[in-house]
C-alpha cells in the first residue's frame, strides 16, 4: 500500500493548481498530483492575454472590467465574485511580473495591453440621440486591457508558475492520475491516484484537497481542448453525489481552425482581424453593430452558425474566414489605435497563430484569410465554490469540509453564462491564489482525520473489472458517438428534441460503457485503461450538461435554445445545480445569483441592473 500524507493535496498542475500550491506551500505541507508533467497542462495553450485594468495604455478601471465580466456572462455572474476577480487581477498581474513573467512591454517599459472581445470602457462622447453608426452612438468602446506576451500568454504563465514552484521546492507527483476522492461523513480526506508508470494505486491522505483539473471540452467532436481535458475532478465529485453548477453553459470559441478545432486567439480580432462570410461580407456588422468582431464569443459563434445556415459559409460549407492581413486591418481601420500596420507588426503580435495556420491549414495568414469554425472551448460550469474556493454541497451554499476547487473545473461563478475572453487566466490566478490560502488556513486549524480501512478498494475493483473484461466493442466508438451527439444536439444551438435525443443517446452509451474492456492488461503506462476511465468521466459530465440544458428553457450566453430564443429573467435568473439522486438520476435545483445592492437617491437598487445584452 502506497500511503502519503500532506496537509494539502492539489490535483492538477495548470495555472490554478500551481498558483494555489505557491500559496499553500508557504505555510503547510503541500503536494501537487498531476496526470501530466506540469508544463504539459493546458493553461500553456492560452494565447492572447490576461485582463487586468492596469490602464497602461489608456484610461481603464477594475469597475469597467467587472461590468464587462457581468454583461459578458449575460448577467448570470455572481457579482461579488466578479468584483473580486477584477480588483485582484491587478495585484496578481504585478505579482506574476515580479515572479519573472515576460510580458510584452510598452515603449516606456510597462506591461503592454491589447484589446479583446467584450472588453470595453464607456464612450465619453456617447449621445443616445446620435445618428446610428456614428461614433457618438456607441455607448462603449473597446479598451486595451489584456496583458500579453505575444500570443503565448498562457505558456508564459504556466512556465513562470512552474519555475516558482521549483524555486519554492513544491512537491510534485508527476504522471499520477486521480481516480477517486476519499469522502467520509461528507468530508473530503484525500484522494486515490494511480501512478501511471507502474500502475500502482496510491492513497493521499490530506486535510484539504483542491480540484484544479481543468475543463472537459473533449466531450465535443470539435474542440480546442487537449486530449487530457476530461473533467476528472468534476466527474468524480458528481459521482459522490456532489452538485455541479451551470453545466449547460459551454463556450464555443468562434475562431477554431476548420475541422481541427485548434484555437486561433481572439487577439487576432483584438489586433484588428476581421471575419468574412463566403460572400466576402463582414457579417459581424449585422449582429453586433457597435463592437462588430469584438463582440463576446457566444455572440460571434452564433453569428457564424447563422451565416452558414443561410448558405453564406465559404463555398457553401460550414466555415467562414478570419482575416488578419495587414491590408485588411488597414482597409477596415481596425488596428488598436486606428493607425496603419504592416505584416511585420502582425507577425510580431501573433507569431504562434501564424505558425499554426501555416502548419495545420497550409495557409499563410500574412497573405490569405484562414478558414475557421466555432470550437468547443470552455466550461463555464463546474464544481460550485464560494469566493474562498470552498466546494459547495448544495444550492443553499453549505460547504463540503476539506474540498476546494479553482480554475476551469470550478464554478465560482465569475463567468456566468458566457466567459469573457482572457478571464479564464484571470480566474486561475485570482481564485487559485484564494483557494490556496484558504485550504492552507483550513489545514492549519485541523487535525488529520481517520481514513476508512481500504480507501482505494472501490478504485481497485473498478480497474480489475475493466481489465478482466474482454475487448469486445471498441470504447472509441462510444467516445465518437458521445462527441458527435454532444456537438450536434448540445452545441451552439439547442432544442428540446435535440437535447432529448442527446439525453437518451448518452444514457444508452453509459449502458454500453459498462461492458467495455481493454486489450492491454499491463501495468506500465496502460494509457488505454486510463482513456477508458477518462471516457467514463466525460459520459457523466455529458449527462449532467444535457440534463441542465434541458431544464433551462431560455437562451442566455452560451446556452441558446431555439425553442426558447429569449432570456427569461423571471424564471431563470438563477444558477443550475445538478446532482445525482440516490437512484443515480440527475436532478436539478437552483441558486440565486449574487447581486450587489447599492443606495442611489435614497433607494436601494442593483449596482449592475439587468439589461438587454447588445454589442
Amino acid at each position, binding site marked *: 500500500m502506497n500511503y502519503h500524507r500532506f496537509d494539502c493535496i492539489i490535483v492538477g498542475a495548470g495555472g490554478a493548481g500551481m498558483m494555489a500550491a505557491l500559496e499553500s506551500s508557504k505555510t503547510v505541507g503541500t503536494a501537487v498530483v498531476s496526470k*501530466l*508533467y506540469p*508544463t*504539459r*497542462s*493546458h493553461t*500553456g*495553450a492560452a494565447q492572447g492575454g490576461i485582463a487586468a485594468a*492596469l490602464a497602461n495604455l489608456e484610461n481603464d478601471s477594475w469597475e469597467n472590467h467587472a461590468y464587462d465580466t457581468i454583461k459578458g456572462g449575460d448577467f448570470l455572474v455572481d457579482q461579488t465574485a466578479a468584483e473580486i476577480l477584477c480588483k485582484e487581477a491587478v495585484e496578481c498581474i*504585478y505579482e506574476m*511580473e*515580479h515572479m*519573472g513573467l*515576460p*510580458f*510584452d*512591454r*510598452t*515603449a*516606456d*517599459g*510597462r*506591461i*503592454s495591453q491589447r484589446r479583446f472581445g467584450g472588453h470595453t470602457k464607456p464612450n465619453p462622447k456617447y449621445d443616445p440621440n446620435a445618428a446610428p453608426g456614428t461614433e457618438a452612438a456607441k455607448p462603449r468602446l473597446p479598451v486595451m486591457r489584456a496583458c500579453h*506576451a505575444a500570443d*503565448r500568454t498562457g*505558456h508564459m504563465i504556466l*512556465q513562470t508558475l512552474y*519555475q516558482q514552484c*521549483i524555486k519554492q521546492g513544491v512537491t510534485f507527483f508527476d504522471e499520477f492520475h486521480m481516480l477517486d476522492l476519499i469522502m467520509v461523513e461528507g468530508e473530503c480526506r484525500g484522494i486515490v491516484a494511480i501512478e501511471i*508508470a507502474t500502475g500502482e494505486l496510491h492513497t493521499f491522505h490530506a486535510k484539504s484537497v483542491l480540484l484544479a483539473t481543468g475543463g472537459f471540452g473533449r466531450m465535443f467532436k470539435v474542440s480546442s481542448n*487537449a*486530449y*487530457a481535458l476530461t473533467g476528472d475532478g468534476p466527474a468524480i465529485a458528481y459521482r459522490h453525489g456532489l452538485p455541479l453548477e451551470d453545466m449547460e453553459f459551454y463556450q464555443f470559441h468562434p475562431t477554431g481552425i476548420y*475541422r*481541427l478545432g*485548434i484555437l486561433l486567439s481572439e487577439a487576432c480580432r483584438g489586433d484588428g482581424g476581421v471575419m468574412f462570410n463566403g460572400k466576402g461580407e463582414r457579417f459581424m456588422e449585422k449582429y453586433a453593430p457597435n463592437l462588430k468582431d469584438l463582440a463576446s464569443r457566444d455572440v460571434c459563434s452564433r453569428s457564424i452558425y447563422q451565416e452558414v445556415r443561410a448558405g453564406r459559409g465559404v463555398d457553401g460549407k460550414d466555415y467562414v474566414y478570419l482575416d488578419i492581413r495587414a491590408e485588411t486591418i488597414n482597409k477596415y481601420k481596425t488596428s488598436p*489605435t486606428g*493607425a496603419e*500596420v504592416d505584416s*511585420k*507588426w502582425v507577425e*510580431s*503580435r501573433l507569431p*504562434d497563430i501564424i505558425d*499554426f495556420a501555416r*502548419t*495545420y*491549414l*497550409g*495557409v499563410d495568414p500574412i497573405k490569405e484569410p484562414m478558414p475557421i469554425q466555432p470550437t468547443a472551448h470552455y466550461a463555464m460550469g463546474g464544481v460550485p465554490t464560494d469566493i474562498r474556493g470552498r466546494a459547495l454541497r448544495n444550492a443553499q451554499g453549505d460547504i463540503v469540509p476539506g474540498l476546494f476547487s479553482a480554475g476551469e473545473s470550478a464554478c465560482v461563478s465569475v463567468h456566468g453564462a458566457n466567459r469573457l475572453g482572457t478571464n479564464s487566466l484571470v480566474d486561475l490566478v485570482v481564485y487559485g491564489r484564494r483557494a490556496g490560502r484558504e485550504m492552507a488556513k483550513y489545514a492549519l486549524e485541523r487535525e488529520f482525520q481517520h481514513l476508512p480501512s481500504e480507501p482505494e478498494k472501490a478504485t481497485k475493483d473498478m480497474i480489475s473489472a475493466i481489465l478482466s473484461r474482454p*475487448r469486445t466493442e471498441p470504447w472509441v466508438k462510444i467516445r465518437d458517438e458521445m462527441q458527435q451527439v454532444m456537438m450536434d444536439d448540445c452545441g451552439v444551438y439547442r432544442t428540446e428534441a435535440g437535447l432529448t435525443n442527446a439525453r437518451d443517446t448518452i444514457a444508452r452509451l453509459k449502458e454500453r460503457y459498462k461492458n467495455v474492456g481493454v*486489450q*492491454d492488461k*499491463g*501495468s*506500465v*503506462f496502460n*494509457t*488505454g485503461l486510463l482513456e477508458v476511465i477518462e471516457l467514463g468521466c466525460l459520459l457523466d459530465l455529458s449527462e449532467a450538461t444535457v440534463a441542465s440544458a434541458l431544464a433551462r428553457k431560455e437562451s442566455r450566453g452560451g446556452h441558446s435554445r431555439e425553442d426558447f430564443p429569449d432570456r427569461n429573467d423571471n424564471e431563470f435568473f438563477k444558477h443550475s445545480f445538478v446532482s445525482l439522486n440516490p437512484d443515480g438520476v440527475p436532478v436539478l435545483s437552483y441558486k440565486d445569483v449574487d447581486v450587489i445592492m447599492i443606495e442611489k437617491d435614497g433607494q436601494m437598487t442593483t449596482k449592475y441592473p439587468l439589461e438587454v445584452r447588445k454589442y
Partner: protein
Amino acid sequence: MSNSESVRNLTLKIKRYDPESGEKPRWEEYKVQAEGHDRVLDVIQNVKWYHDESLGFRRSCAHGVCGSDAMRINGVNGLACKILVKNLPNDVLTVEPILGLPVIKDLIVDMKPFFDHYKSVLPFLINDEPAPTTERLQSPQDRARFDDTTKCILCACCTTSCPPFWGDQKYVGPASIVNAHRFIFDSRDRGAAERLDILNDTEGVWRCRTVFNCTSACPREIKVTQAIQEVKRAMLTGDINLENPEVVSISH
C-alpha cells in the same frame, strides 16, 4: 486552403518495447491509410484506438505547445502533432523513442533526468531587491533580448538530438542551457553569475560541439545553438549586455 485531401497508404514502423514481457525492443509494422492533413500523431493514435491498444506514447494538446509527444520520426526528432502526413518524404514512416533517455514503454521515455538537468540551472527569476508596487520596468529592447528562449516548451527534442548528450547523459544538454539563457539575459534577473558558474563546467556549456542538431530539432524554432554560444560568450567576456536583436515596434 491547400488541397491536402489525398489519402496515402503508409507503412508505419514503430519501435516497440514492453517492459513487462521480458522481451527486447522490436520493430512492428502497420499498414495504414492516412489523409494528407493528418498529423503523425493522428496516424499513431489511430493504430492505438483501432488496432493495437497497447501502443504507448504521450500526447496532450496535439498542436505543438505542450511538448508531450517528442519522438524520433524518420530518424529526426520532432513533435508528432506538428508533422503532417502530406509532408512526409515517402510512404514509409518510422517512429521510435527519443534517444538518450531510458525507455519505459514503446515511445515513452523517462523524463526525470531531463527535468533534473533543467532544474539544476536555477530556471527561475532571481532578484531579491524589493519589488515596486507595480511592475518592474523593462524596455522593449531588453525584453526582446531573451524572447527567443522564452518559447521553450521542455519537449526535449533538442537535448535528445544532441550527439554529445547521447554519449554523456551527465551533460546538462541544450534545453537546460536555453532555459538558463532565458534568465541570464533578462534585465530583471540578478542570478546570471550563479548560473554561468554552474554551466562553466565540463558537463555544462563546454560539452556543446555546435552540431546544430538541437536547432534543427526545435519545434518552436528557437535558435538553440546561438543561445548556447551566447552563454559561452558571456562566460568568456563576463558581459551579458552584448548586442541586442532588432525590435519590432509594438507601440505604434
